[in-house]
């Protein structure tokens, strides 16, 4: 399955938008955090896990989804949220803790929920997997052609929920696709230190499931593999597992000095940044002109600028609102 030109351009624009978003978030995050870096301060407090470098995973998969499909993301959710069509303004406002945020500032960056596009999160490693199996099972039960996708990191593939969810999905033949973003690290612990097999796609066999690995952090390759898996799920062909080789260009969270990385690793990753790579390909293959590129970048950046500006301008929730929505 090869992306059409519009799909290529959508992927590109979404990646650019996602990266622009992360950059603006990083900038805002540092405000109020110097000279002393204290997570509690500034317009965005708390941990901040950026997705720089992992955009291909989000776009290659979400290109095949629409709002009715269900996605669960992790502690590192921005790129996926953006690719899934989560309202960018409300998402930015949520990250700034504002009343206009997706959940009025209750959730924050690790708990982005947008029911309109069936997007959910959990900050606990691998815990989004069970919900994805459940949503998919509901779709199957009701005879709907919707699918569910659970994103996790490669570190999460060693959590019990991974095993239980894959087995359950296979036993129930649920229309769900499990996507592992393999950036090689779980905070400071490398994949080799934590995972008994080189690649997690090989673990699909333990569930009689199809497993695929996509190398090169290439959106088109991801698009192809994810497209097959999602189409198969949608057609009643059951679940599958995809592991995508990707790169974490930011620290685990902002502030991570990454002293644990081997020398030179980070530079090598930057040299393979997937955004310039895709831009190069699109230009080289004549799918995008320089002018189109400029327009795309401008559009993406202005969407982000606008979202961030609105978020900054929005009011904070009142203290009493903390007590709302504990129960429905």
């Amino acid at each position, binding site marked *: 399955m090869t992306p059409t030109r519009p799909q290529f351009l959508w992927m590109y624009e979404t990646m650019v938008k996602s990266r622009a978003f992360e950059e603006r978030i990083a900038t805002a995050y540092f405000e109020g955090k110097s000279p002393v870096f204290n997570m509690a301060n500034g317009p965005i407090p708390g941990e901040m896990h950026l997705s720089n470098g992992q955009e291909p995973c989000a776009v290659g998969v979400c290109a095949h989804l629409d709002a009715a499909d269900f996605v*669960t993301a992790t502690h590192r959710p921005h790129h996926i949220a953006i690719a899934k069509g989560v309202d960018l303004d409300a998402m930015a406002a949520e990250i700034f803790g504002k009343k206009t945020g997706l959940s009025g500032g209750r959730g924050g960056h690790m708990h982005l929920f*947008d029911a309109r596009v069936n997007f959910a999160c959990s900050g606990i490693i691998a815990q989004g997997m069970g919900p994805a199996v459940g949503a998919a*099972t509901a779709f199957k039960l009701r005879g709907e052609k919707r699918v569910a996708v659970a994103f996790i990191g490669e570190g999460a593939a060693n959590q019990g929920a991974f095993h*239980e969810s894959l087995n*359950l999905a296979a036993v129930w033949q649920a229309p769900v696709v499990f996507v592992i973003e393999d950036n090689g690290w779980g905070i400071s612990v490398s994949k080799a230190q934590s995972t008994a097999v080189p690649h997690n796609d090989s673990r699909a066999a333990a569930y009689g499931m199809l497993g695929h690995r996509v190398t090169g952090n290439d959106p088109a390759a991801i698009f192809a593999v994810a497209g097959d898996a999602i189409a198969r799920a949608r057609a009643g062909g059951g679940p599958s597992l995809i592991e995508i080789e990707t790169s974490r260009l930011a620290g685990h969270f902002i502030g991570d000095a990454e002293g644990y990385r081997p020398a030179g690793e980070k530079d090598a990753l930057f040299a393979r940044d997937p955004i310039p790579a895709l831009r190069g390909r699109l230009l080289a293959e004549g799918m995008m002109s320089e002018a189109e590129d400029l327009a795309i970048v401008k559009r993406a950046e202005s969407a982000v600028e606008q979202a961030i500006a609105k978020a900054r301008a929005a009011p904070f929730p009142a203290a009493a609102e903390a007590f709302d929505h504990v*129960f429905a």
Partner: protein
Amino acid sequence: MTATATILPNRAKRNLTIAKAMAEALAQEMRRDPSVLVMGEDIAALGGVFGNTRGLLEEFGPARIRDTPISETGFIGAAVGMAAVGMRPVVELMFVDFFGVCMDAIYNMAAKNCYFSGGQSAVPMVLMTSVGGGYGDAGQHSQCLYGTFAHLPGMKVVVPSNAYDAKGLMVSAIRDNNPVIFMFHKALQGMGWLGTVQGSINDVPEDAYTVPFGQAAIARAGRDITIVGLGATVHLALDAAEELIANGIEAEVVDLRSLVPLDRATVNASVKRTGRLLVVDEDYQSYGVSGEIIASVVEAGTVLTSPPRRIAFPDIPIPFSPTLERPALPSAEKIVAAVTDMVRGGR
């Protein structure tokens, strides 16, 4: 949620066990609402280890009555996802003692997703789970853990003491848009092999009805002391109250029925009348239900004639041997002794 059953005047009594009342509530709600489904271990062909899903597979088939692998994190997580897309799953955690393998799905997702989503994404699900000891099932199969669940925000927690309440609370739970932990006590369940406290079997209207959450019941009125119980301990309190009459003591027995929401008003009003408070809880004593009830009463400024007391399971794992377990459990005897002491001027 305030509708209660209209009991037809000449209706014949239908004395049901809690197990049957739960199964009936499930069946009726499943007929009414196609989004309700049941999942758990051994809940289909076997009808549930504790009988509360008996007959459902036959009527509703395996798509809606789903036996699961022994994967509580997986299938309780799945229930959260089902709820997110419009189903109303009822899941069973066979023994509450197993919460340790799946608590994240319960307390970090089911209980919080509504809040995290600012109300966009409610989690209408029921987790039914068996609690309680006294039959020699030892330390990993006899706990109540009421306090463990009630302490964590975002879940409603109900504990029926009889079949009427069980049916009505189950209907309320299924219709509620929030996660409800439905804790049924094995000694009240009506499975012959677990014995059955007879008081748990009572008249259950045939039609669906709701028992609202957050309304404690005065299981017995009395003026000398308020005994607060829940689930099985309500029956111990009632037995004790009956005996206490011989001592000239009239005990009021409050059945909490739900821990979240907690009906502090009824408890406080009762203690205001009686001036004395004894809490009887089968869960571990410290940092649990008994402490919360006492604190709620005294912080409200209610004046007590004698210091409040509690009879709870001591802070020890639940021992196997009957000569160790039984004396450690709350009992009518202990209640009689404590109440007598409190009313007759013990400290």
